[in-house]
């Protein structure tokens, strides 16, 4: 038996590197800085590029340019940086630019607490863009997930040509822990689908109403246009309402129709009427609490969501079907509970949230589960 020992943030960097990422740009910010530090060690000797932008906006700009020139790109920040990324996130969504964005969440609002954990950006990641089109958000529970989900995130970003977020947390990113890296199965690397036809290249032509456009790089032999403006298949501005509507519809469907490809979760069934739903680092306290309840003969079933957006609606409904009572616990004041209540509107969904910079403890979760009326 042999184990590695590293931070979740380091694991993210290794996962990205092994998924083929060779371009990183970021601006230092606690608690995400160690991703930049690790990429600075990994990329330059491997012929990759790792740069520090003058701010988060520049870092995102570098990433978008490099991505359209064909590189697999990563950036990492925390809440205040995500705020500055926002306009470029919208660009990446609307203009189908692959990239992976890590948000190592810290306590907000605003600059908040640099070294305190939170899951306060969960709705912000989904809706912090103009236009409101969907994004993919994956939430790691531990360092293993940081490593593995980041590799998956690249495959999703590259094949669907979209930004993919890793919603980490200071408590996951900056905690060092042991795991055997070699025992973690990484997905087979997937790349963008290249355009191979002899016909003239149209940069935003998709094969069907839910596909990503085939790709050619800026700088290659065929001319490529990229634009943040509302565009037709040729990458020029369009005012044709049918073309516009069809494209928006495709961007929506592109992610929603293939949610099966990135449905990540753990489910621990139990002979009980109660289902606990968690994500991120809170899932760990929940597991500790549940193993205690299990030993006491009062088990509770547990669903750990690792894909947060698009919401795994069918899966959540299917798993929740047999339970009478649902309990959601998260490190904010009820952001994802909104989604669970929306989906499971025929069941009581109790909620406990904590937003004080500390992890929710197993004893608190146990209390919430063993009282009929949770604290909130």
């Amino acid at each position, binding site marked *: *038996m*042999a*184990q590695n*020992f590293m931070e979740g943030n380091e694991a993210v960097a*290794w996962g990205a590197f092994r998924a083929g990422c060779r*371009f990183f*740009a970021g601006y230092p910010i*606690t608690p995400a800085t160690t991703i930049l530090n690790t990429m600075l*060690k990994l*990329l*330059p*000797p*491997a*012929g*990759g*590029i790792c*740069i520090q*932008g*003058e701010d988060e*906006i*520049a870092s995102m*700009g*570098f*990433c*978008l*340019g*490099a991505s*359209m*020139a064909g*590189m697999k*790109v990563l950036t990492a920040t925390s809440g205040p940086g995500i705020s500055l990324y926002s306009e*470029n996130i919208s*660009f990446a969504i609307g203009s189908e630019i692959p990239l992976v964005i890590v948000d190592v969440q810290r306590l907000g609002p605003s600059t908040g607490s640099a*070294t305190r954990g939170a899951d306060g950006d969960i709705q912000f990641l989904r809706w912090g863009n103009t236009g409101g089109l969907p994004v993919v958000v994956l939430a790691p529970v531990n360092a293993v997930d940081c490593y593995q989900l980041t590799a998956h995130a690249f495959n999703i970003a590259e094949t669907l040509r979209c930004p993919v977020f890793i919603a980490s947390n200071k*408590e996951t990113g*900056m905690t*060092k*822990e*042991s795991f*055997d890296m*070699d025992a973690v199965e990484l997905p087979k690397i997937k790349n963008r689908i290249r355009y191979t036809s002899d016909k003239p290249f149209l940069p935003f032509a998709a094969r069907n109403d839910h596909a990503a456009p085939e790709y050619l*790089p*800026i*700088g*290659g032999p*065929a*001319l*490529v*246009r*990229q*634009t943040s*403006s509302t565009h037709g298949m040729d990458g*020029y501005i369009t005012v044709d309402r049918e073309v516009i509507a069809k494209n928006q519809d495709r961007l929506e469907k592109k992610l929603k129709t293939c949610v099966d490809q990135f449905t990540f979760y753990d489910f621990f069934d139990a002979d009980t009427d109660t289902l606990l739903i968690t994500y991120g680092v809170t899932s*760990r*306290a929940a*597991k500790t609490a549940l193993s205690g309840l299990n030993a006491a003969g009062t088990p509770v079933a547990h669903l750990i969501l690792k894909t947060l957006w698009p919401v795994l609606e069918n899966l959540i409904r299917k798993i929740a079907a047999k339970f009478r009572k649902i309990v959601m616990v998260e490190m904010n004041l009820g952001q994802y509970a909104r989604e669970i209540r929306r989906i499971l509107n025929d069941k009581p969904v109790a909620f406990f949230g904590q937003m004080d910079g*500390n*992890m929710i*403890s*197993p004893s608190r979760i146990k209390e919430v589960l063993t009282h009929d009326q949770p604290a909130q």
Partner: protein
Amino acid sequence: MTSLLNNNRPPVFCPGCAHETVTRALDQAFCNMQIQGRDIVIVSDIGCSGLFDTFFHTHAFHGLHGRALTYATGIKLACPDLNVIVTMGDGGLGIGGAHLLSTCRRNIDLTLLVLNNFNYGMTGGQFSATTPQESQVGSAFLNRIEKPMDVCQVTAAAGAGYVARSSVYRNDLALEIKKAIRFKGFSVLDLWGLCPGRYSKKNKLSPKTIQQTIARLPAVTGPVQANLRGEYGEQYRAMALKAEPQAQPVKIEKQYPPPSPKRSGIIILGGAGQRIVTGGELLCYAGLTAGLNAAQKNDYPITVLRGHSVSEVVLSPETIDYTGIDTPDVVLALGPEGVARRTNLFKKLKSGTTVIQAADVPIPDCAGKIITIDFQAIRIKAQDRALVGLSILAGLKTVITMEMLKEALKIRFKGKVLEKAMALVDT
């Protein structure tokens, strides 16, 4: 060489717009240089200058306002052989000010054409970063109380390798553009021209007055001697080549039986400079040598060399789910700052908790079993307290053993540092 202008998409500027003159001169420069469209990317900003990419048969990248230089930088780093031309107005110049300065400092091989027409044409003639204070603009009197910036002075001061100011009405404008593109490094062309739609209706400006004004200013005509240096991408690649390949992450084999079959929570409380974080890491490494799972969290202020340093370690034969420590099994109280940071912790200690306390560090009353070490009496320096504290802990054979700790030292340190550390734990 034939024109790269896209005949299907002719320029759509207002009649008399300076941008159209620049469009044609840029095409002429491309023709003179015999560059193919596929070897060029035009990165255009927002506003009227943002239309440039659509007029040419080249690669094109059109993004957000003020950010053109950032996209261009990413593209250039990914494709060092591509000719990267950025078109930006005096609006993009202002909104992207930080990017302008940083691009100058980097000296990356981009060509920036600042289409300077002294106002925001597209939104109704508001004032920009270059609008003269005496001008009549669409922002009422506001421009009268802001000093305009001189693009050339600012970019030269910020480190641009090539800076030139030019009227767009010069006969040899194409040559000026060609020289800027040829320059290996960041080149900035401050191109003054008319915005007939918005600006020159209310302000007396003509090709002639532009040329006269430029003639009165100090000449800025190309390479800035003080800023001539290596191009960013070339320097990056040369330095990256010399970087040591990153070793695979350390992997630690199980070699010893763990002294305890249960989960332990250890909290090391100390101050900056006492190597508390390294101590926590060594403790985890020691645990790994016995096949235990380990988790470590540290807490220290933003300042270094001052204030608290706290490391929390969990070692467990089981998977570590919750990484918090509600009631620790061991507390090492090595510095007063750490104790002050976690005063409340001591109330929660149980009789089974081991407290390894430095004699000169007072701690609140608590239920733990206290072992006091007088570090000063045994001449242990502040930076060695954590390690010596761990050796005391190893001697107890509850959480780690001495052989585990020594193995951890061998993994973590080499050479003289290792020898010194080994000597310390043997004291």
